[in-house]
């Protein structure tokens, strides 16, 4: 019997952006809501502080009050290992507000010594925020939304920054004393040749980050991605039109070649892949994201944020008004939850998540778990191979990483 677990991490969603990017599916409000006299950031901050209090109180009731990370079994719970401020553009938050939020999380949930505190930030001059203040507030890790080092591609993606802005931003967070710097890149960009993409990758490597996430651009063109859950906002018509055009200019072959190129270039530059879309220098993997892939409990606050307690996934409504109104009235926000998974469902999910990571799984255990047919199919089609450092384990091959859904759809 699986029982709910106390959270090991907290995800805090900050939904504000200076402007919307047409490919983005995250819960974002932009423009006047994020900036200037009609900014909603103030109301949001009051609400999210309230949610931190309410969620923490619930955790206290279930798992005991905050204790010490060093002691267990005394009726108290451990502080968090990770806080992740994602967005949106969390670097838009005023520096004192950011400091207050982190302090509140430390106060209510606890942050263990050496906990990872990640701040997502955009590189644009008007959106990157003050790195020094962020580090002072407790941020240890910056995740920078670079996407590309190609100026035309950035413009086409609706980004507000240039490659020079990226260099300045990276320099600023380094100067501020960040422990870890990560950059995000996109692959399979419309109208970007393999050569330009390779050049952009070289420029990104030259920034000397500690961690890189590279995502093949996924364009939800039907707008129905939200399903019946209210954890996403409707995609504006203009963005849908952009996506339809962009999807037509994507190229499966070229996208695959880019990901293959990555697999040659990044190891040579000192990065190891540790998850399908993530590479890191030694000691710089994302602790927060590893919690997700280990199916560990992660609490979440903010509109559209998703939490997991080890048994059940729940989410907040993406509707900023509804989310805020409940919290201002002192109540938890509206949202939804999935049915808890069956034991086999949970095992399948854990297997898929484990296989996304380079550590893979112990072959014999996974075979015994009822996934033998799928795994053998993966092996015979060159998607799975023995782990180079541990022959009892199997991991995805490069081909397997590119075609992982072919395998995973046989596991779920």
């Amino acid at each position: 019997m699986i029982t709910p677990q106390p959270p090991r991490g907290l995800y805090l969603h900050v939904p504000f952006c200076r402007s919307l990017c047409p490919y983005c599916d995250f819960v974002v409000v932009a423009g006047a809501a994020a900036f200037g006299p009609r900014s909603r950031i103030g109301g949001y901050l009051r609400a999210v502080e309230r949610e931190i209090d309410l969620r923490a109180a619930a955790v206290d009731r279930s798992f005991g009050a905050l204790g010490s990370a060093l002691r267990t079994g005394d009726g108290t719970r451990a502080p968090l290992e990770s806080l992740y401020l994602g967005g949106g553009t969390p670097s838009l938050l005023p520096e004192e507000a950011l400091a207050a939020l982190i302090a509140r999380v430390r106060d209510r949930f606890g942050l263990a010594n050496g906990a990872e505190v990640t701040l997502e930030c955009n590189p644009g001059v008007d959106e990157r925020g003050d790195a020094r203040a962020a580090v002072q507030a407790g941020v240890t890790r910056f995740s920078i939304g670079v996407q590309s080092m190609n100026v035309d591609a950035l413009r086409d993606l609706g980004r507000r920054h240039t490659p020079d802005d990226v260099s300045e931003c990276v320099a600023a967070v380094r100067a501020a004393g960040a422990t870890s710097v990560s950059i995000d890149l996109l692959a399979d960009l419309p109208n970007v040749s393999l050569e330009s993409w390779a050049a952009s990758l070289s420029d990104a490597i030259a920034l000397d980050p500690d961690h890189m996430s590279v995502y093949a651009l996924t364009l939800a063109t039907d707008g129905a991605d939200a399903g019946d859950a209210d954890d996403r906002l409707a995609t504006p018509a203009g963005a849908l039109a952009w996506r339809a055009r962009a999807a037509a200019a994507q190229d499966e072959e070229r996208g695959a070649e880019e990901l293959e190129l990555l697999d040659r270039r990044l190891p040579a530059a000192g990065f190891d892949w540790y998850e399908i879309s993530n590479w890191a220098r030694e000691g710089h993997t994302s602790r927060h994201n590893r919690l997700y892939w280990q199916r560990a409990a992660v609490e979440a606050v903010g509109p559209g944020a998703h939490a997991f307690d080890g048994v059940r996934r729940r989410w907040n409504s993406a509707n900023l008004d509804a989310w805020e109104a409940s919290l201002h009235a002192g109540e938890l926000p509206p949202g939804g939850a999935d049915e808890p998974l069956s034991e086999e469902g949970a095992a399948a999910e854990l297997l898929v998540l484990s296989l996304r990571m380079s550590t893979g799984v112990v072959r014999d255990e996974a075979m015994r778990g009822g996934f033998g047919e799928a795994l053998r199919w993966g092996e015979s089609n060159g998607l799975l191979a023995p782990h180079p450092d541990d022959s009892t384990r199997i991991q995805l091959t490069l081909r397997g990483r590119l075609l992982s859904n072919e395998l995973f759809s046989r596991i779920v």
Partner: protein
Amino acid sequence: MSDIPQSRLRNFSIIAHIDHGKSTLADRLMEATHTVDPRQMTSQMLDSMDLEREKGITIKARAVRLEYAAADGLNYGLNLIDTPGHVDFAYEVSRSLQACDGAILVVDASQGIEAQTLANVHLAMKMGLVIIPVLNKIDLPASDPEAVMNELEETLAIPREEVILASAKEGRGITEILEALVKRIPAPSGPLEAPLKALVFDSHYDTYKGVVNYIRVQEGRLKMGEGITMMGSGAQCLPVELGYFRPQHVPVQVLQAGEVGYVATGLKSVRDARVGDTVTTTANPAASPLPGYQVALPLVFAGLYPVKGDDYPALREALEKLHLNDASFTFEAESSAALGFGFRCGFLGLLHMEIVQERLEREFNLQLIASAPSCKYQVHLSNGKGELLINNPAQLPSPNHIDEIREPWVNASIVTPSQYIGTIMDLSTDKRGIFDGMEYLDEKRVVMRFQIPLAELIVDYFDQLKSRTQGYASLDYVESEYRVAPLVKLDILVNGEPVDALSTIIHRDRAQGSGRNLASKLKELIPRQMFEVPIQAAIGGTIIARETVKAVRKNVLAKCYGGDITRKKKLLEKQKEGKERMKRVGSVEIPQEAFLAVLRTDSE
């Protein structure tokens, strides 16, 4: 027994082209004779199947007795035997006509006589039936009764004085028609005291009453309580019920010579009481049966497969049930590597095929795929190994075992406004047709005659004819003979494996184009696989066209964090469901939709 003597019975049917107003006329005749309670009257009363009302065609023959108080002060019993109007059901027409002594010929006064009507009238005249010509729709501004009467005179030698002008829609001419039925059609003449001879002209299956035969009593009497024998099958039974149609069943104790009615036999299989059989009494049997009908033989063959493999037993059951009501199609089990288990079915024509498929889908809630239609080929084997009859390309032996292949030809006649002569000529010669002559019906309309291979006709000739002539041309055809042709089997190979459902027998000159077309279509329809998949069209061992489906290179969900996990799982489950719906050909997974799409559009 009804109280109307034999001398005051009249048995007739209505011959008409689709849309010329046959069903409306039948409705008016029933109204005028108070056969149906006006409150229960629905339009096209006799077409009881939804499909018939929707398509505006009559599929099954039906009968109804009208009781008419004539101008001479006497009551008459007029038995209307309704007949299907489409070429596929010509056999039903000939059956119905055999039960009649006269026929109303309905011609649209604005459109003139059509090919199918022409054929049926010739048939009726050959059988000695009295023809009562009716020009319908004279209310329409476009109607031109004079021109159509000329046409009738010239093509059928029907004197214009005999023609009745009518508008079934407005009820005009109905009394004249009823009087003409009484005066012009002879009363049936079969002896009442002779041993029973009744012709089965149709049948259906009723869960409670067993096989119900529709009969015309030619001689003697059929009585409740007297055992009967089907002279053809030898099956014996005691009638469960006798009666006539109004149009619902009205039970009686006796049916006598000249009457049209039904006998419920209680028999469980239509095979025991086939259409065309003769019913006689077991105790006092007739010496010889009535001349039966030529059994209608299927011309068009196709495999019917359930979309969901689990539905195979349900399909078998549905075919068996439907066959009880429509014995004119045939079915036998077959299996296909691509489509699974199904049935090879024979149909009277393409429309018949469409109707059977639709009835199976609607009445039995099945989803079906039909393989490409085929006809029956005679295959002469080499080295004196004899002859094979095949209706499925999969049965064709390899070319080195074949001396020659013969295919069925038909004589087609097309009635068309003369401005379409050129396009019909092009279409028909393109379909390997041989022009056989042409006659003008009047200055604007012609009958064109072609000899044409049936295989060409059943692909898309009829659709093309309709679209090229805006629906103005009508087509009739009769089987003629088998002729030798350079036919080959065109196979489609996916990753080296032949896809049996896509094999066709085709003229050698057409194979290249058709093969290219199929291969390029499949290329679009088959999703990328884990490896490169060649698609080839081949005749024997020779590849005549090739396309390649590239291997899938990338299928990955890049982001997988908090909120993505549920979403990703839904996506994976969708991909999994998609895979489960696929059919396997060798190691290639092909979506069912790909077969459907190819089979539906193989007409180009």
